[in-house]
């Protein structure tokens, strides 16, 4: 039977390094994805995720299982991501109009658009890529706290109470935050929404 996150963390506290490796294995992918969707840069997302794991490791001596491990983990991640987004807000360079047209691969590697790609369904592929790009841009345009709320709600399957604790707000404030975020997404993705009818 798999040990719970809290049990693993208590074992790490007791000096069991293997338990930390298990926590790393369990949360590396969701954490990197959450951070990647927050900061939109793969390398930065991985750096931040490393920092999250390092902070968890450093805090092992004082760990008390007063809350869910995931709540604690994503609270650290969210704070780091929000700080990073705020720090970079005025440093990000605008995409140059001279830059080559690219298709954002979801794996984070942007590659030049190869029109002569040997794909029999290239038109369908391009439409699908454009659709994903529109969705990503709609998420990127959300204010950072709304973005964090949507990502935690949609991809981490946390309940409202946990997300509220992570974002340090009340449950009703969280629901209001999510409502406003979905309203913005509804407007931004109106062409896609209309296409579904």
């Amino acid at each position: 039977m798999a040990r719970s996150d809290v049990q693993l963390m208590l074992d790490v506290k007791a000096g069991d390094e293997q338990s930390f490796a298990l926590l790393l294995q369990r949360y590396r992918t969701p954490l990197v994805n959450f951070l990647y969707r927050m900061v939109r840069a793969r390398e930065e997302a991985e750096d931040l995720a490393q920092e999250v794991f390092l902070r968890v490791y450093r805090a092992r001596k004082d760990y008390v299982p007063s809350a869910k491990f995931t709540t604690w983990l994503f609270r650290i991640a969210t704070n780091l991501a929000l700080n990073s987004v705020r720090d970079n807000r005025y440093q990000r360079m605008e995409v140059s109009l001279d830059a080559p047209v690219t298709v954002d691969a979801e794996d984070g590697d942007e590659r030049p658009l190869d029109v002569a790609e040997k794909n029999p369904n290239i038109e369908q592929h391009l439409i699908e890529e454009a659709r994903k790009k529109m969705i990503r841009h709609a998420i990127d345009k959300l204010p950072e706290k709304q973005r964090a709320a949507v990502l935690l709600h949609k991809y981490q399957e946390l309940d409202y109470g946990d997300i509220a604790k992570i974002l340090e707000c009340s449950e009703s404030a969280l629901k209001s935050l999510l409502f406003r975020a979905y309203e913005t997404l509804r407007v931004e993705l109106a062409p896609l929404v209309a296409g579904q009818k």
Partner: protein
Amino acid sequence: MNCARMESRIIPYVDGRLKENERLEMEKHLAACGACQLRVNQFRAVSGFLDDLPEIEPSAAFDVRVRARVAAEPARQSWWASFAPSPRFALAASLLLMATVWVGSRPYETPTITAADEAQIDQNMPLLENYDVLSDFGALTELPPPVQPEDQGTGGQDQKQDQDQKQNQNQTM
């Protein structure tokens, strides 16, 4: 229920996380409100779009970097290790101990009293015995200050100067 109350319930409704009575109340409102029903449908569509974004995999170097950073962390100290003094503290304590031993090992020099000293003490003993009484003798403090002779000190000179001044004044008148 009015449309304003939808704001806090629409997301839980789309998620299927409303309580039974809240869900029934919501559906009653939706059946009568086309705008709210449209919003619910569009929120569901948005939620579906978010599902379409695939996940990324952390790079192969990710785990290696985390483990390297964890390994670089200082090792955990045992509770006994917390009593171990720092090098500076150990040096200071050693110096203090050495100084204490050195001072303690020095021979204690007792003062020697000669026969002449004892004779002098015996001679002064009556004066020493009365010293406390004399130094605290209140009647001495009530005595008037001693009067100095006129031909001594500066007082006599002042009087002579006064007499000279009077003589000078009489001559000018």
